[in-house]
């Protein structure tokens, strides 16, 4: 196990390094932020001074090396726009995004898993067919459209739920969170649902496919021949087996939910990292963009690693084969 983790960490470092190169070069290619940051009336001398202060006068490779050097010290540069460390800016916004993403994943599991199980166990029934038809919608509707529709129905027409912001937050271990207050929950609901929709559809499909496959296996046949109740056959024998791939996918999806949050956060004016990214792109705030992308990549890598570990913990065949044979 340890060997495996070390190998994965080394691989991750390599990925991070390549990513930083790509991101750096990519952002450089997008354009220079000077024109946006400096008022058009500034003199040439002012301009040169600002460029020098931001370090933009150096050649790209040198800028990159300096960046890497600082990055090792935990410094990903200062935001041009806010003039505070980019990393601090992102970390301030991160809890909001993480909360939204977790809430969305929770919704996806709580809704998707039972529906998927049902659809798998009774594939020919009318509810199962409707579930499957619904899941196709979940896949094909674009997030922004769903978000707008939800706002229209629940916020504008019915007026039941707020359409933007985070609502009142409660500090949990010093971090502001929304889900502990009714108002906060009301604010979470629409963006959470928007973000969850695709994953609900995904989990329904996965669970259904897994259940149907499991129903045909010999071990389910044998479990039935033992006289076990349906509850035990489905709840233990089937679920324990199909949960392995589902957990894997859920965890991997968590990464993309964080990335997809960009759109949802923008629509619902949710003050998370995604919104920060859009704002930063608008002013070409290079350090924030670079820092954001690197942090998201790092999170992806971390989640992947955790998934692999979780996978091996869930599946005894993986867990024990690594430790046992020698």
């Amino acid at each position: 196990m340890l060997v495996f983790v070390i190998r994965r960490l080394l691989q991750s470092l390599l990925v991070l390094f390549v990513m930083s190169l790509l991101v750096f070069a990519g952002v450089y290619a997008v354009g220079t932020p000077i024109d946006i940051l400096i008022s058009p009336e500034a003199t040439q001398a002012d301009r040169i001074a600002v460029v020098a202060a931001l370090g933009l006068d150096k050649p790209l490779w040198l800028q990159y090396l300096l960046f890497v050097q600082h990055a090792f010290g935990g410094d990903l540069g200062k935001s041009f726009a806010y003039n505070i460390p980019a990393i601090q800016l992102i970390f301030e916004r991160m809890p909001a995004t993480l909360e939204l993403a977790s809430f969305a994943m929770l919704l996806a599991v709580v809704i998707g898993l039972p529906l998927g199980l049902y659809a798998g166990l009774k594939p020919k029934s009318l509810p199962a067919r409707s579930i499957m038809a619904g899941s196709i919608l979940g896949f094909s509707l674009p997030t922004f459209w769903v978000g707008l529709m939800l706002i229209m129905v629940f916020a504008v027409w019915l007026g039941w739920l707020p359409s933007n912001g985070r609502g009142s937050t409660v500090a949990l271990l010093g971090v502001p969170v929304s889900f502990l207050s009714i108002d906060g929950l009301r604010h979470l609901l629409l963006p959470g649902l928007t973000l969850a929709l695709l994953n609900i559809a995904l989990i329904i499909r996965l669970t259904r496919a897994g259940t149907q496959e499991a129903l045909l296996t010999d071990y389910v046949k044998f479990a039935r021949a033992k006289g076990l109740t349906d509850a035990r056959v489905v709840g233990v024998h089937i679920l324990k087996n199909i949960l392995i791939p589902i957990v894997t996918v859920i965890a991997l999806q968590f990464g993309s939910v964080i990335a997809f949050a960009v759109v949802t956060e923008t629509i619902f004016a949710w003050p998370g990292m995604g919104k920060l990214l859009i704002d930063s792109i608008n002013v070409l705030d290079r350090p924030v963009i670079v820092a954001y992308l690197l942090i998201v990549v790092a999170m992806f890598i971390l989640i992947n690693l955790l998934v692999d570990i979780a996978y091996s913990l869930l599946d005894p065949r993986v867990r024990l084969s690594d430790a046992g044979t020698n």
Partner: protein
Amino acid sequence: MTDVLEVRNLHTRIDSASGVVHPLDGIDLTLKAGETFAIVGESGSGKSMTALSIMRLLPEPGWIERGEVNLDGHNILTLPEYRMRDVRGARIGMIFQEPATSLNPVLTCGEQIVEVLERHKIEEGPAARRRATEWLKRVGIPDPERRMDEYPFQLSGGMKQRVMIAVALAAEPQVLIADEPTTALDVTIQAQILDLLKSLQKERGMAMLLITHDLAVVAQMAHRVALMYAGEIVKIGPRDAFFAQPLHPYALKLFASLPGAGKRGEPLASIKGFVPPLHGQFTGCRFADRCDYAYDRCRKQAPAWHGPDPQHQARCHLLDPREEWRLAELLRREDDKVPEAADFAAPADAGDLLEVRDLKVHFPIRKGLLKKVVGQVKAVDGVSLSIRQGRTLALVGESGCGKTTAGKALLQLVPVTGGTVRFGGNEVLGLKGAELKRMRSRMQLVFQDPFGSLNPRMRVGEIIAEGMASFGIGANAQARNDRVAELLGQVGLAVESRYKYPHEFSGGQRQRIAIARALAANPQLIVCDEPTSALDVSVQAQILNLLKDLQKTLGVSFLFITHNIGVVEYLAHDVAVMYLGRIVESGTAEEVLNRPRHPYTQALLAAVPRLNTESKLPPLTSEVKEHLAADIPSPANPPAGCHFHTRCPLAVEACKAAYPAEVAVSATHKVRCIMVQPE
């Protein structure tokens, strides 16, 4: 003995796209306490369907139309499903064919037994755990405490089957249904599992319904036997009478199609045609289309039960007392038939075609941070053998012994680690490009699973012609076309078959196609890897007959890789026995099969269940069995010295020192065991 289970007039139906199928049409049988009742039949006969119907575990579109299943006099077919669950596991236990897939992979062995005890309210909590551990011990699992917390994948195949038996019996059912309980196991393991079932049954006085395709297993285990064909029982009787008098023409054919030493040189009986489709009603005998003795009455009227005594009966008009004259007439005609001369003279010695010396195939095991090679799986570790022109060498061994890898290595389908392979006098290892291709055209391969090896999107004609073009055989498309027609004829398929796709054929026919494809290149050697193990015995007989005919007419040699001793006895000229990557004994079929010298060969041959009890070899003693019960070691880490010493009844300290040298018992008979002295 009292009747525990009684099945009466059971009719099962399956809804399918092409209408309602009748897999069971009026099954009647009774099971007495302490009795083993076997149902035998080929695939599609309805034997497994009978078991599933009794358990009411039919797959989704299946349903029971009418009939009764009386357990202790009460019909369980009328129970509501929730009450039926109290019957399953508690009063009727069931085990299945595949221990590897029937146990839940993510639950420990202990959990899988405990849940039965708790479900049927036999024990709870720690007491249930204790009871489960006891059961593991009772089914012969060493170190049961530890095994309780292990997962199925950590156990060998035989161990898994023992766990499955423990699960099925934990709630002490009166009836055990065993559906092909040993089909997935090696013979030496099979012998142990059959013994275990026998002794548990005796000890507990339970009734056992054994379902199998293997007549020899039945002969060993059953008190009474029923033979099924096309959804009904066609013959039923006490074991000895059942095998002594075939009564029914289908039974006669089936017995005669089993390969074995006694039939060497004669063609095996084969049954023409196919099992009829099971849609709807039959007006006459279901076997009529395939029966050599069918006459007009057979097609008009379904035969009733007749037989020499009330216990031993068959459904055939010929047994009707009124038809006595007809039977007598038929028997006279049979007697007049001149038996085909046994023709088993091996061809005159034409010299070695294939000469393999010290062949090695090692697969690296990688581990650790840098994926360092930390060991080798020595799948094939110094195999030497030779095959002469026009002869058949059988390479025999149990699963994991490396026989399949050895076959592939000869054709260089896996990377070879070392050794030499001379074919027709020329070294073939290391050949590349055009030369490799030329060599391959002379050595062909036929696989076990004909379906997996035939491209489903190509027509049969294309499949056969494909190889020819790439090997440069046949002057032009027309010539190749003619050749395809000729080949199809040779393997007994209609010429029109060339326009069909593989899925339109039965398993046996697909194997014929695979053989035709192999023959297309005019090979001198065909490596056959378990070519008949996926087939029913009557179909297997056809394929074996075909292979023998081809050898006679074309003079090809066969390397026959198999675990089926009956097949080896029937057609091999020479035999090599493999254990954990090495050949432990080799010689002519006569020498190895009749006078085996290596303890492993002896055990292997003695473990094979046989129809006739008078085998030339003494049966396994319980002491030998105990030794054999040890797990087969992994080829990644074979025991030092003689690899067999962990399971060998004769092992002494010296066996662990070094791998035994080859001892020549005769010019052809070679054995690797330190206990064997040259004669």
